[in-house]
């Protein structure tokens, strides 16, 4: 507000004159607005809004003044405005000419039961879209097997580099630390029974069979699944997917299959790498805390940890990879509106793929247990 102008103010004089003074402009009209809203208008009294004291006026001031005028009239007052400068009066007539539109009741879009029905319809449509996506991916895969030259090797290799090679340091570090943690916790218990050497069974079987594949999959879901959703979603928002379709190219073949294939290759390799570093972490702690030397550890490893444990762990990895890549890409294709949709679906892709990976892992554990593997 200009320093030369007075603070906006209103006062009701003798119940018949509302004296308005000062700068009725947008940031500064707020106290007046509050005062007017709480005003008890004198009933059935001819009331005058004396406005010659208003020193500055904008649409904010006009809206506040007009709202007060309408409110006083609604409560049965006869109100007239006096002393308003002509240019300010223009703003008032601007407000009055749009008043009907401003206070028009806008019907809320849906009531409760409509919302419920809409959400059911949404779920069904989403299910249909999921099936459609899976079907398209499967047919694209079949076409690709029939004509392998259609495979986009370049984008597949690029994806392999970004999602596989670049994930090596973090995957290695994390599984190494997990190996350390498991060995530490095991050491406490095993030392009590003097069965130190069983640290090898503990670390080896748990890591190779369950933990390394899961850690690798969860990391990749966070790193790559989310990236797939965001990339494809942004391409959708910027109409790049539409451009591909007008060239007669299938986005599924171009974007989804190379990523799925790259992850199917990368995740088992990452898992094997994670196995090695995790067991190494356990081995360090075993020699440090339990006096199990590296040679003792490795010879026990050969007899105690059957090959099938590692194969089961590695065998699950490609399935995890398919889940992660498909969920990420699918969520990318689901992005419709704009910026916040990208964020939402990226989040969904991570949560959903980790959820499905763990469900799949649990089912595997149960089945393998039945078959005594």
């Amino acid at each position, binding site marked *: 507000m200009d320093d030369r102008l007075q603070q906006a103010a209103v006062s009701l004089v003798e119940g018949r004159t509302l004296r308005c003074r000062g700068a009725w402009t947008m940031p500064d009209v707020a106290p007046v607005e509050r005062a007017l809203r709480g005003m008890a208008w004198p009933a059935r009294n001819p009331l005058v809004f004396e406005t010659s004291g208003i020193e500055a006026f*904008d649409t904010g001031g006009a809206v*506040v003044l007009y709202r007060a005028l309408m409110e006083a009239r609604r409560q049965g007052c006869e109100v007239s405005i006096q002393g308003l400068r002509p240019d300010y009066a223009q703003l008032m007539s601007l407000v009055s000419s749009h008043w009907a539109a401003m206070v028009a009741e806008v019907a809320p879009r849906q009531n409760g039961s409509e919302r419920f029905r809409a959400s059911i319809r949404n779920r069904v449509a989403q299910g249909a879209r999921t099936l459609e996506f899976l079907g398209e991916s499967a047919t694209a895969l079949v076409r690709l097997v029939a004509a392998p030259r259609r495979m986009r090797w370049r984008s597949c290799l690029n994806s392999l580099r970004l999602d596989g090679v670049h994930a090596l340091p973090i995957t290695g570090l994390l599984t190494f630390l997990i190996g350390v943690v498991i060995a530490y916790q095991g050491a406490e218990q095993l030392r009590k029974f003097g069965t130190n050497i069983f640290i090898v069974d503990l670390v080896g079987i748990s890591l190779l069979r369950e933990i390394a594949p899961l850690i690798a999959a969860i990391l990749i879901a966070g790193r790559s699944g989310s990236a797939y959703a965001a990339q494809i979603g942004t391409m959708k928002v910027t109409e790049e997917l539409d451009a591909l379709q007008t060239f007669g190219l299938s986005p599924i073949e171009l974007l989804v299959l190379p990523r799925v294939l790259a992850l199917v290759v990368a995740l088992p390799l990452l898992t094997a790498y994670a196995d090695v570093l995790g067991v190494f972490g356990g081995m360090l702690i075993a020699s440090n805390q339990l006096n199990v030397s590296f040679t003792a550890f490795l010879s026990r490893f050969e007899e105690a940890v059957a090959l099938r444990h590692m194969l089961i762990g590695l065998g699950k990895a490609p399935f995890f990879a398919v889940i992660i890549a498909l969920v990420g890409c699918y969520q990318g294709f689901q992005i419709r509106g704009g910026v916040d949709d990208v964020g939402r679906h990226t989040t969904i892709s991570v949560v959903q793929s980790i959820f499905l990976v763990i469900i799949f892992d649990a089912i595997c554990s149960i089945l393998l247990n039945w078959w005594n593997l």
Partner: protein
Amino acid sequence: MALVASTEAPIIEVSHVSTRFGTAVVHRDVSLTVVRGEVFAIAGGNGCGKSTLLREIIGLLTPTTGTIRLLGTDSRQLTQSNGRPLHRRFGVMFQHGALFSSMTLAENVAVPLREHTPLSAEAIRDIGALKIALVGLPPDSAIKFPSELSGGMRRRAALARAIVMDPELLFLDEPTAGLDPMIAAGFDDLVLELKRLLGLTVVMVTHDLDSLWRIADRVAVLGEGQVLGLGTMDALARSDDPVIRNYFHGPRGRAAHLNHSGTGLHRD
């Protein structure tokens, strides 16, 4: 404060601005002034630095050398925390609307009011509704999200948001680009009407020749990093500068001029 009369220095003063991005020179010694109450247009071909100049004036970019004074203050202050009072005094309509996609139209329009004023929610709603009505959008569009509006409506919504604080200065970046001729003409009229009602000074970047003829009081033509010509459309149309001639006397330029003068007899 739209209606406090004042006679002061130019509302925008761009002096000796040069801009380089790496080795690419965008502006070489650009100077111009905008006076209160006019519709000032910055025109020129694609890539001549129109939008860059606009972004420098509103403080989103800093020129390499030279100064820009906006409402009497160095526009470099806009990036600092004490620039906030200045931000209240101008509104910007971005080329693609830049409406916040997670908010309804009413919420979009309310953002500056909520952030800059202590007004109550009811007053904010009323003022927002007035601006939405002023730009000619129906009341039920207030609860819609930007993705549910058509391109022309989104442009109007962005304009409503830009004028919600009754700014002294309104910046429009390519306001009519991508609109059909009828809607574009309607938009021009709307800008003129709002200028009259709210006492705005309008600065717009455009290469819509129809709009230049219809609403611009003065036009600066940028080219080769410099101001090639500055004046009314009539004066520029008589200019001898080859680039300006090309710009205004190409087939589209002539058509726009004929449309504007309303006679088939005009010859240059």
